[in-house]
């Protein structure tokens, strides 16, 4: 590697890898709406579509961090709007426990839960921008190789 390359490398901004879970009925449609409305947001996220946000097990999130994700964003329907009546209420409880567990590992701030409905393309965009900014400020995950 030449000196020139080194200089270039140090100028590169940290681009986080963010894993986003979207539920099939609300937040994935919300992400879709953000797309068709041509709302711009950072390209750091990788979306995984699940049928319901309550499908997301604690191990999914831990596995994501283990594999080098800098942040995990969990999105689902608003409370009361769940396609499966009360699935997202389970998510709510589980994610609170998960944040607590991750705090013990020093990763608590890297997990975020947000309710996004199918009509909230704008909110999806804003959530994304805010979360990427937050993770950029935190820096790379200590588990990243």
């Amino acid at each position: 590697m030449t000196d020139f390359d080194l200089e270039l490398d140090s100028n590169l901004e940290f681009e986080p890898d963010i894993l986003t879970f979207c539920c099939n009925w609300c937040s994935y449609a919300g992400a879709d709406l953000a797309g068709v409305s041509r709302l711009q947001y950072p390209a750091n996220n990788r979306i995984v579509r699940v049928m319901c946000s309550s499908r997301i097990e604690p191990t999914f999130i831990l596995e994501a961090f283990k594999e080098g994700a800098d942040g995990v964003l969990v999105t689902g329907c608003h409370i009361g709007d769940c396609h499966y009546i009360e699935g997202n209420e389970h998510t709510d409880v589980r994610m609170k426990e998960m944040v607590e567990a991750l705090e013990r590992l020093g990763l608590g701030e890297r997990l975020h839960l947000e309710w996004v409905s199918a009509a909230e393309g704008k909110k999806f965009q804003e959530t994304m921008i805010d979360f990427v900014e937050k993770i950029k400020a935190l820096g790379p995950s200590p588990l990243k190789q």
Partner: protein
Amino acid sequence: MPSNIQLCYQCGKCTAICPVRRVVKTSPRTTIYQSNVYGIDSDDIWNCLTCNRCYDTCPQGVDYPEFVREERANRDSTGAGAGTKIAHEGVFTLLAGMMADLGNSRTTLKEAGNERSKVGYYPGCLDFHDMFFNVDVDFKAIAVSSMELLGDMELDPKLLQMKCCGHDQLWQGDKTTFDKLKEQNTKLIEESGIETLVTSCAECYRTLSQDYDLPVKVVHISQLLKDANLNTSTATTTDPGINVTYHDACRLGRHMGEYDAPRDALTNSGASITEMKHNKNDSWCCGVSSMMNCNDRSKALRKAKLDEAKDTGADVLITTCPKCLAHLTCMKTEQESVENYEFEIKDLTVFLAEQKGGKKDE
């Protein structure tokens, strides 16, 4: 220490006595025979609960659980517990693995105690139990009660902020993670300046005293409690006391040979103990060890255990291992619709702390 299965002369006492054998077609004798004679790697090792029942019985002193542990480590090619399903989707294994890789992570509980104390209390993974077990048990109460009881004994303890002890990883065959945790914990203990390390968990006790090389003395809290004067035994002359039964956790009983200390502690507190049909070194297992093999078969073992406890007519089932506590409580809740278990399941420290509090109120 390499396992000594070559000593086996195939008497079959291990298979006859094996608790898992009652529910699964498993045979320690055959597994040893195949390994010794043909060099076959039997998948039977994944069924073993490593409860040490066979080692306790073996006339030759063959340490089958040790053999199982080594074999699991040797065969671990695609991550921990490759040959079996780990309970709770392996969330504890993942957490411990991440804890081993992260420098500053600890299992922490808020009560910190005296910073300069020579006695350290290690709560283990109680806080994670609270987060991920869906049972009606307050695990943090074990830590709180232990600290309270140690305080009453004027030991002035401090709560150690260590990582997971690595017990489950070791027995699941993930030696790499265990070694990392061991190294980091040993350093933390050395830095803390304690002389005595107290645990309230049978698994931590076994791991810290046998699998770690610590410069400090490791004791289980029951060994301190048996000699302690906790002002709970005042009413014994008139009041026969609460009727309890005690479940020997395999790690404290058969692994560490400590059968009497918890019983003495209970008797001192004014409780009367009714023993289960199978007790002390003959005790039946809670069915899950190292977070492995939580399935229909081990549930049958737990059902048998609960039925035995029911037969004693005791009001409280006491144990010294948070995992036994969790799994027996889980089974009790599950069975409530068909069976009527009228006893409570409690940890030794929680029970003693409650007894003490109750007597104060009178």
